[in-house]
Structures are given as C-alpha cells and as structure tokens.
C-alpha cells in the first residue's frame, strides 16, 4: 500500500491509498481522480496517463522506463525530461509518499 498524491494542473490535490501491484494510473481511475484519461487502459499505447514527477529524488527512485515508454511520451502533451506514463508506475510500499503532477491536458 502506498499513499499517492495527485496534483491537477490547476493545483487541486487528491490523495489516494493505492494497493501494491496496481499502477499509479489505476489508483487515479479507481478513485475518480480527474486529469488522467488512460484511453488504452494501461497498454502503453496512448500516452494519455502522462504525469510529471517534479521531485528529482523521486524521479530517480522510480523503476526505470521500459523500452517504448519514451517513444509514447514523444506523443504526449508537453512532455519533459521528468515525464512518466503513470500506467508504467507499479505501486509498492517503496512508492509511499509519491507525488505526481498532471499536465494541462492529456491530448
């Protein structure tokens, strides 16, 4: 279990307890947190669950990007070097306290 903080582009904060094994994307969808669309349902084929990890330390601590994630991020709305696809961030106790920021929009 990890407490994940989701911050919308307009600054609205949401917190959710997300079970281990779920993705950060699923944590948002299951808790009706707006700002993450996840059109493809977690297949790493749409780039609409894009988030920023603004804290450098957290960004480095996250599991490394698999092949293909950066390719999808190329197609996201305003990708930056701290961008991740939240469907690829699998929750474990290690992610307790993670904060993700949502982009202005997903498309």
């Amino acid at each position, binding site marked *: 279990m990890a407490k994940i903080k989701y911050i919308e582009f307009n600054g609205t904060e949401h917190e959710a307890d997300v079970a281990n094994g779920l993705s950060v994307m699923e944590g948002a969808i299951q808790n009706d947190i707006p700002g993450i669309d996840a059109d493809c349902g977690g297949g790493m084929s749409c780039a609409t669950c894009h988030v920023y990890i603004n804290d450098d330390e957290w960004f480095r601590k996250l599991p490394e990007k698999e092949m293909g994630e950066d390719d999808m991020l*190329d197609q996201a709305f305003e990708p930056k070097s701290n961008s991740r696809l939240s469907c690829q961030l699998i929750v474990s106790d290690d992610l307790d306290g993670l904060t993700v920021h949502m982009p202005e929009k997903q498309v």
Partner: protein
Amino acid sequence: MIKTDVVIIGAGPTGLFCAHQLGIIGLKCEIVDNLDKIGGQCIELYPDKPIYDIPAVPKCTGEELTNNLIKQIKPFNFNFHLSDRVQELKNENNKWLVKTLNGKEFETPNIVIAGGVGSFEPRKFPTKSTEKYHGKSVLYSIKDKTIFKDKSVVIFGGGDSALDWAIELSNSSKVTLVHRRDEFRGAPASVQKIKELSDNKTINLITKYSIKDVKGNGSLESVEIKSESGESKVIKADYVLGFFGLIMQLGPIAEWGLNLDKKTIPVNTENFETNKKGIFAIGDICTYPGKLKLILSGFHEGALAARGCFKYARPDEKYRFEFTTASSTIKDRLGVKE
C-alpha cells in the same frame, strides 16, 4: 444516397464481427472508418502484439485477427468506406439519414456504433497560436508534397513519419527537424540517414527543443522553439509540420444526443441499443454493469445488436434463430457448397 439495413461505425474487430452476424441473418450493411485501413486499434496500435484471449485461438496478433475477420465476412461483399467519418445523423420517419465527412449519404433504420474509444485523429501542437494556421501552413499530414518546393519547412517529431518526411523533403526544401530528445523512435536506417543529412548540413537538426509559438502576419513566417531550461530560438518557417502519432477522440458521436458516461455510451444488455431507437453501441465504446473491454465481449455484443437491427430492418418478418452448422439458408449466404 445509399440505402442499407445497417451502417456500422468502426471497422475494428467488434464492427467486423457484427457485420458477419448481420450477413448470417440476411441483412446488408455499410462500414465506415476514419482510418485508411480495416482493423481499428488492432491494426493501428498493436498489429504485431500477440493477443492471448480470443476464444479457441491460443495466440494471434492484431493483424492476424483482423485478416481472419476480413476473410470471415468476405462472402457478404460488404462495402467499406475508409478514411471517412460519420459526421451527422438525422432521424426522418424512423429512418436515420447519415452523412459523412467526405459527403457520402446513407439511409438506414439502424446504426451500430463500434467506435472503440473514438476515431483516430492526429495529435496536434499544444500551442494555441498554431490553430489559425491549421490546414494551411501548420499541417499534420501531407497530401501534396509539391507545395513545399523551395520553402522553409520545420518538422516536429521523432517517429517514422517525421523522419521519412524530413528525408524526403530535404531534396527540394530547406528542412529543420526538431525533436524533444536525442533518441528517435523511427527505424534505425532512417535515424542513420537523418544523422548523415545533418552532418553534411542538408537538414538542420535540433534536439531537446519543442514548439513554443508560431508567428506571422497573415501568412506564417517563423516558429519559436524552446528548450526545457528556457532557451529559445526562432526559425524561419513557411510550413510547420507536426507528427506526434494519433489520438482517439470521440468526435461527432458526442453530438448525436446519446446518453454518455465519460467517453462511453450506456446500452441495455438485451440488444445493445442506446437511448436512441435504432442506434446500437458495441465494443469498447459501450458501457453496462459488468462491462469488460475485451474483444470477445465485443463479439457477443455484436451478435446481439445484429438481432436488434433485424427488428427494424425487417419489421414484417419474425426473426428465426438458426445454427450455421445446420441452416441451408445460412450456407447459401456464405456461398458454401456441399
């Protein structure tokens, strides 16, 4: 005006199997899809990825599944209207009048929406200022490459479309290729070619930059790009091209008066009809208690929606349930000789 029993919106697996079921029960249909090829998400998003949960098919790729479905409906000779999109629906005397973007018109008692998560559209630049140049000097696809001759063209993107067009247009235009990182996702040979063209100064390659703004006085004059650390550059541009892949958007479906639940359409599970008589929704785009976004669920939904269509297409006939193994009528429709 084409008169038909059913217009199917979406040529993905669900739409294709629904067409099969319509053919089996003796109805005609016309299939419209925004993509230039048949197969929907299976062919656009994951043609090479194996699928493991098609009943009785332990493993097949999106492309194989699509090809088999096309083969399965071949006997019915249904028409496909590709690279087109259903734009407008109007109800007149219990018939739906359907208009497409390319100006085709259908008259039908039934519409089956098998539209997945919507139609595939090119992803656009995030910058608002590009909007007034859309379709003129800011483009997301190329129809006529001769317009770029001797012009300054700035291309954004790192995939095959961006690389291929940068290579192609570098013969006759002044090309700048801008990408947000150093790695490209295009084919290795194209990446190699781009590096050569950049080394010999045929193209201007700029990485770790993205679009900031476009400027012009009536016609486009330049594009401003920015790095993540805030540096910016202005590049002369007659044309700006963006190749960021495709995104699924609900599009005109949202304007037809259908009940919507987020991006999905609620249906009943008896025949998958929506709140509008004669409009059915199946596959990923429909929702009901217990809905699973699986291809196999889409097949089931298509089979039941087809029977729902029968009622409106043949109001004076009673639908008779038959098995393909036993019915000679069905075998005739399939053109099976025994």
